[in-house]
C-alpha cells in the first residue's frame, strides 16, 4: 500500500526537507543577525603577548620583605557521601 505512493512521496519528501532546511537556516540566520552586537570600548588598549607576559612574570622581583600568612585555601570540592 505504500508502494503506490512511493514515487510521489519521494518528491514530496524532498520538497519538504528542502523547505524545512531553508526555513530553519533562515530563522537562525535572521535571528543571529538581529542580535545586538556590543561595540568595542572606543579606545585602543596596548596588549601584552603571552611570551612577553611570561618574560615579565619570570622577571618579577621576589619580595622577601613583606610576606603574609595567606587565608585558608578553598575547601576541596568533596563528592557527596551518601
Amino acid at each position: 500500500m505504500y508502494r503506490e505512493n512511493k514515487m510521489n512521496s519521494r518528491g514530496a519528501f524532498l520538497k519538504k526537507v528542502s523547505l524545512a532546511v531553508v526555513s530553519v537556516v533562515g530563522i537562525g540566520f535572521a535571528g543571529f543577525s538581529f542580535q545586538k552586537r556590543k561595540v568595542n570600548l572606543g579606545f585602543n588598549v596596548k596588549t601584552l603577548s603571552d611570551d612577553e607576559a611570561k618574560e615579565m612574570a619570570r622577571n618579577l622581583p621576589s619580595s622577601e620583605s613583606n610576606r603574609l600568612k595567606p587565608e585558608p585555601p578553598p575547601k576541596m570540592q568533596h563528592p557527596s557521601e551518601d
Partner: protein
Amino acid sequence: MQKDSYDSSRRDFLKKLPVAITGSAVALSSCSRQEIDEYLQENFRTLSSAEKKEIISNLEKKYSEKYGKKFIVSAKPAIDNTLFGYALDLSRCIGCRRCVYACVKENNQSRDPQIQWIQVLQMEKDKGIDFMHSDVHYDPELVPEEGYFYVPVSCQQCNNPPCIKVCPTKATWQEEDGIVVVDYDWCIGCRYCQAACPYGARHFNFGQPTVPAEEINPITHYLGNRPRIKGVVEKCTFCIQRVREGKYPSCVEICPVGARKFGNLLDPNSEVRYILKNKRVLVLKAELNTQPKFFYYFGV
C-alpha cells in the same frame, strides 16, 4: 462521523479542564499567597516599577525577619555614562586571599557549601600564565612563595559574554554599566552558563546556601548580594551594591598591597584609564573573543 467523535471527545476534555485547573489551584492553595506570587513572578526586566517596589519591600521584610537585621534591597539602575572596568597588577599581588574572604563577607556567599567568587591561582614564574599548571589549593606558611606568582580570577565582565548568549531564559544579562548580573528568581539552574564560562566565574548553589545571621551583610542589591536560594547560579557583580553608590568593590578596598584598581572606562581621567593608557595589559583567554573588562598588567 469520525470528526464528530473527535469533537465530542474534545468537548469532554474541555469540560474537564476547569476541574483540572481548580484541582491544581487547590493543591497550590496549600502554599501561602506569597509563595504563589513568588512562583509566578516574572523576569526582573519585564516587571513594572510598581511591581518591583512591591517585590522588594516583601523581600526586605522577609530577609529582616529571617536574619533579625534591618535589610535594604536596592534596585538602583546603572548610572549614565558609566562602564566599569578593572585592572589588576600581577607584580604586586602576593596571593594572600584577603580579597576572597572580603568578597565572601560583602556578598553573602554561602559558607557551607562553600562558594567563593574569587579564585586565586598560584602559577610558576617560569611557565607564565598557564592554567593547566596552576593551583588554587596552595597553603604555605607565608606568601608569596619563591618562584611563584599569583593570578586572582573572578568574573571578567566580558563585553561579549558567552554566558548570556547560552542562557535559555534570559535570566542573566549585561547592564548598561557593563556588569553581568543574574536574576536569582528567574534562573532555572540548568548550568549551561557554567559550561560556557571560560573563567569558572559562575557558581551554582548545589545545596541550600547558609550564611550565619551575625555575619550577613544587610546592605544589598537585588541583582547582587541579596541572599540566594538553592538551585540557582551566582557570580561576581563588581559589588554592584557598592559601585553604583560610588564606592569601590570590597576586594579593591581590602587588598593589602594595592594590586587592584577599579573605575569608569568611559572617564578618561579614571585610574583604570590611566593604567590602560600607560601600561600594556593582558586579558585572559583573549583568543575566545570574550572581550573582558578585567585587565591584568605588570606594574613594575
